[in-house]
């Protein structure tokens, strides 16, 4: 594995987002939605507390919708245009290519997330929040975004059609989030053994993100997202290898 190759591929892919208006449209929509959810859904002002919990707690729901839009092009476009034949006959390994693309999408998401800094300024202006908690939540949210992106990148390798990649990624992301939702848990709790209920809810993004959004970084939660990313990206590489020439 050559780090340089990952970096070169990441750089190309990251710039690719900005070659078209897609990046700007995405960032604007993302900022509008985070703003809307923080103030109207999260009741930022009414709560009367100097923190960004209303901002972070709704991220899983935003990511379900927005992350597939970032990840859908990663491999589907490459396969559709045939440039995958070019990429895969350059002296790079599949894993380098998968990681390079993933990190590009992740960096782009990180950038979009950072552009919410006016919220941070606002909360610091209005009160004295615990900035350590905010930083921890930020990193946690980014880690969760990586989980969504890994799913989306893997799904993107299955099809040449970006719309299909978007829809399937969205559904799978939804399943991963909903697994920890009260309704789903209650549905299983009525008849399934407690262990199964625990397993299902332990797979949920919500369960693992809840503590993070309050600024509590638990090693187990981090491990969950990191291994989730690793597994989906590994599957991603296998799929690219198997289907690149189709």
């Amino acid at each position: 594995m050559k780090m340089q190759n990952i970096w070169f591929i990441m750089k190309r892919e990251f710039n690719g987002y900005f070659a078209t208006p897609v990046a700007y449209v995405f960032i604007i929509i993302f900022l509008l939605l985070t703003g809307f959810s923080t103030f109207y859904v999260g009741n930022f002002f009414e709560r009367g507390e100097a923190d960004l919990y209303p901002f972070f707690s709704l991220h899983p729901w935003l990511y379900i919708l927005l992350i597939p839009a970032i990840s859908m092009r990663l491999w589907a476009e490459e396969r559709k245009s045939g440039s995958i034949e070019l990429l895969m006959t350059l002296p790079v390994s599949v894993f380098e290519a998968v990681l390079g693309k993933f990190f590009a999408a992740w960096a782009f998401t990180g950038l979009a997330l950072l552009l919410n800094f006016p919220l941070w300024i606002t909360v610091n202006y209005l009160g004295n929040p615990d900035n350590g908690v905010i930083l921890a939540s930020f990193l946690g949210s980014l880690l969760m975004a990586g989980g969504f992106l890994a799913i989306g990148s893997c799904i993107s390798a299955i099809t040449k059609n970006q719309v299909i990649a978007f829809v399937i990624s969205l559904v799978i992301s939804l399943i991963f989030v909903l697994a920890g939702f009260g309704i789903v848990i209650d549905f299983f709790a009525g008849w399934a053994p407690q262990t199964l209920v625990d397993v299902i809810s332990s797979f949920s993004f919500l369960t693992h993100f809840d503590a993070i959004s309050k600024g509590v970084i638990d090693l187990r939660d981090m491990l969950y997202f990191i291994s989730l990313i690793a597994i989906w990206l590994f599957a991603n590489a296998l799929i690219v290898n198997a289907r690149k020439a189709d």
Partner: protein
Amino acid sequence: MTLRIEIDDLAKYFGAIKAVDGVSFSVSKGEVLGFLGPNGAGKSTTMKMITGFLAPTRGTVRVCGYDVLKDPISVKAHLGYLPEGAPAYADMTPDSFLHFIAEIRGIKGADRKRAVASAAERARITNVMFQPIETLSKGYKRRVGLAQSILHNPPVLILDEPTDGLDPNQKHEVRTLINEMAEDKAIIISTHILEEVHALCTRNVVIANGKIRFDGTPQELESRSRYYNAVCVNVANIEQQAFETFLSSLDFVANVEQLSGSDGFRVYPTEGRQITAELSERIRSNGWDIDALHAEHGRLDEVFRSITLPNAESSK
């Protein structure tokens, strides 16, 4: 002679379809191998296996001594590849695209700039370096692909239909470029433009239905034609009938045929010999004036058809 590409019993099956079925050949430095065959014959599939994009069902490919299955990265580092249709990243400019390729190819620092400039120069794309590739014409896109493939000055070049979709001037430029590079590289070019056999290739492999049907020089390919070294001849001051009888009586003539549409005859030599000089001498010694006399080359389209269509010979 240094062998650069060695292919042994290469095969690729897609389910029941045998796209490539036991192909073996090798290419040395200085050779330009023209890979001919009808569409769907297995040319592109073979090239995809050589470049490590497709895994073969069986057989081995070695490029500069590296096995494509055991060390694909080394194989890819030693070859330049222009895939069919010259795919590229459409939203990049040729400049940023070629810089990306140079980075991945491990070309560093000032060399990178030089390599990009030189490849752009040779592929003649310097005037479009800062336009998005998607806005370029087909010919320019093809040449961007070509620039990408020669950027790192690879010892082995695999070009899948490099002149497809180019106008005659552009074709000429691309052929000139390939001829310039031929000396110190091993090159495989797939094409179904038969004029390129002469313009480019030192050797031809004809493939049909996944199998090699011919492997030899362009001259050998031509000599397969029944027109090879045939002579068209006409004389002014003698009756056609008598002239035909005379021609048939010559010992180096195998067959005589009346030309359609005009006076004169096509004379087929025995065993493909060159008979032009001998024939003209015999005619003159009879005191006849030669109206027209020219030797024919082999007709490649006819050879191509007879090699690639199993029943062409009998249905003619």
